[in-house]
């Protein structure tokens, strides 16, 4: 029963925010999008252990796909969501197996390169808007219960839809994490060779994680296009999106379901309430980031855990199991 409490708290929190001003709605919506991208990344980075620095590509696929479909073909939000996410998944299925031949640093840098190529393509191609971007994306009309003029500009409607998407994306993550697939991914992260020797096609699992990341990030991208109503290359560059998603996952606690939510509140939404100068805000951001990764190695989620348990350190049963397994396999001479 208690495991549903955080979910109830999340829904309640989003609900309270939903009664807020257009500013709060916009801030909460854009922060939720950043958090969704981070949750998406958490599948391949947290569970799978591949540091993907190019999640902005798929965020961008979703946003550009939706922007083009809506402005050129008149697709609705729902139709754009299906098609744009499908595009991102197809792209990830093509590049995933190629990039995933590489490991650790090599993989991180290849995904970073992929992000560079994506931004270059959309920025240089006039059919994709070029530097000018694509304006004029039309939001869906207000949800029925708002009535005729209860929600001017559909901002509250967009906010609610984004909340639904956020909860759904988080649920997908939690489901994968709790499923056998998620546990296998975590085992691969800890010791890929061992998993191979146990008969797992590890590449398949890693491609799966990569694709789920792509698909979920594209969901966030589609909502980005409809809430901002304008897309241009900048927000999908490494510096703006991939960097941020990576930092949110690291600060929140990799592989932790609630990590990105906590880190998103602290790093994305929080700074808007600081009335410092622009420069001081940057120092605070950098300082908070450094302090958390130095003093809370497991991220904010682990910190909250420790608080709740009165200071007891968390232990990983996964690591112990793997070590035991490895020992057995080595003594059997299967691993060399």
């Amino acid at each position, binding site marked *: 029963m208690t495991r549903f409490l955080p979910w109830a708290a999340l829904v309640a929190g989003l609900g309270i925010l939903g009664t807020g001003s257009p500013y709060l709605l916009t801030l909460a919506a854009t922060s939720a999008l950043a958090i969704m991208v981070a949750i998406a990344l958490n599948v391949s980075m947290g569970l799978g252990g591949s540091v993907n620095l190019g999640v902005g590509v798929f965020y961008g696929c979703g946003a550009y796909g939706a922007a083009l479909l809506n402005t050129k073909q008149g697709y609705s939000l729902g139709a754009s969501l299906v098609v744009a996410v499908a595009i991102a998944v197809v792209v990830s299925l093509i590049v995933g197996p190629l990039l995933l*031949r590489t*490991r650790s640093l*090599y993989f*991180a*840098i290849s995904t970073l390169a992929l992000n560079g190529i994506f931004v*270059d393509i959309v920025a240089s191609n006039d059919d994709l808007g070029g530097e000018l971007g694509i304006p004029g994306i039309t939001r869906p009309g207000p949800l029925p219960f708002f009535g005729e003029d209860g929600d001017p500009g559909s901002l509250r409607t967009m906010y609610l839809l984004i909340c639904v998407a956020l909860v759904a994306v988080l649920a997908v993550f939690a489901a994968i994490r709790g499923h056998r697939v998620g546990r296998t991914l975590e085992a691969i992260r800890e010791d890929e060779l061992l998993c191979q020797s146990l008969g797992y096609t590890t590449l398949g699992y890693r491609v799966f994680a990569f694709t789920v990341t792509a698909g979920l990030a594209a969901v966030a991208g589609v909502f980005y296009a409809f809430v901002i109503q304008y897309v241009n290359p900048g927000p999908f560059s490494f510096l703006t999106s991939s960097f941020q998603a990576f930092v949110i996952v690291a600060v929140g606690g990799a592989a932790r379901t609630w990590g990105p939510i906590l880190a998103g509140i602290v790093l994305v939404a929080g700074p808007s309430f600081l009335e410092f100068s622009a420069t001081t805000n940057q120092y605070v951001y*950098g300082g908070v*980031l*450094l302090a958390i990764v130095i003093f809370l*190695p497991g991220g904010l989620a682990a910190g909250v855990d420790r608080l709740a348990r009165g200071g007891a350190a968390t232990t990983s049963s996964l690591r112990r199991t793997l070590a035991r397994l490895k020992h057995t396999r080595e003594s059997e001479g299967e691993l060399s």
Partner: protein
Amino acid sequence: MQELLNGVAQGTVYALIAAGLVLIFGVVRVPHFAHGESVMVSGMMTCWAVTSLHLPVLLGAAVGVAASVGYGLFLCFAVYWPMRNHPEWNLLASSLGAVVITQTAAIAIWTSTPRVTPGGVSGSFEIGDAIIPWSWAVLAAISAAVIGATALLVSRTTAGVSMKAMAADAETAQLMGIPVRKNWAIAFAVGSALAGVAGSVYSTVFPVSTTLGLDVTFSALVVIILAGIGSVAHVLWGGVLLGVVEAVAGTVFPGGYQDSMVFLFMLVVLVARPNGLFGLERARD
């Protein structure tokens, strides 16, 4: 012809920066994303020493390199060393945090106007129909010489060999009694010194600005990928290759897709050889 020579000159600088990064990577095991900031700090300090303190260029360069080494050692002991047992993405995130703070401080001090250190070598010479400024030749020569010296240092000295051992297998190296803390200090000092030399010399030829750090780090990472992690000497070829690819891409696709072409080339290399062109060892997980 002109483009090729341009590429070679630019490539040797990339290689020099990448060589420093390889040394640091050997001990920390994660890309030190703030490495480009060392280059920036050195370039800015050199320029400041020459224009404000009116020091001769060589002394200015010494100031720049010293600042860069100081910066590298500070990060080593204030940030990375306390985190040595943390998961690798924590270190990666901390290096990005360091980038944010360093860049903000640098802009507050020096603004973001690009600057060139006055007093560099002037004039040019011709090879065929290509015109090469002497300053470029000096830049390439210094870079290649420093890389060579570092490669010798790593292969001939005890400290160098023990650092290589650490890079190969940190745990075993520690068990064999290799002074880990000292090696970290040496790696950051020498690695940042290379970045410092690159930054100060570069600032006499090309404009440096307070925002160039991450771009420089990316180029250095591409070089390392092309060359394969591990060897300081191979990095020189990786750097020259990157410089040439960049120059050729710039000619074939004017403007537009230049960066993409470099990235694409790197991706093709990686897909064909997942451990880099000269990579001998398997990339560690």
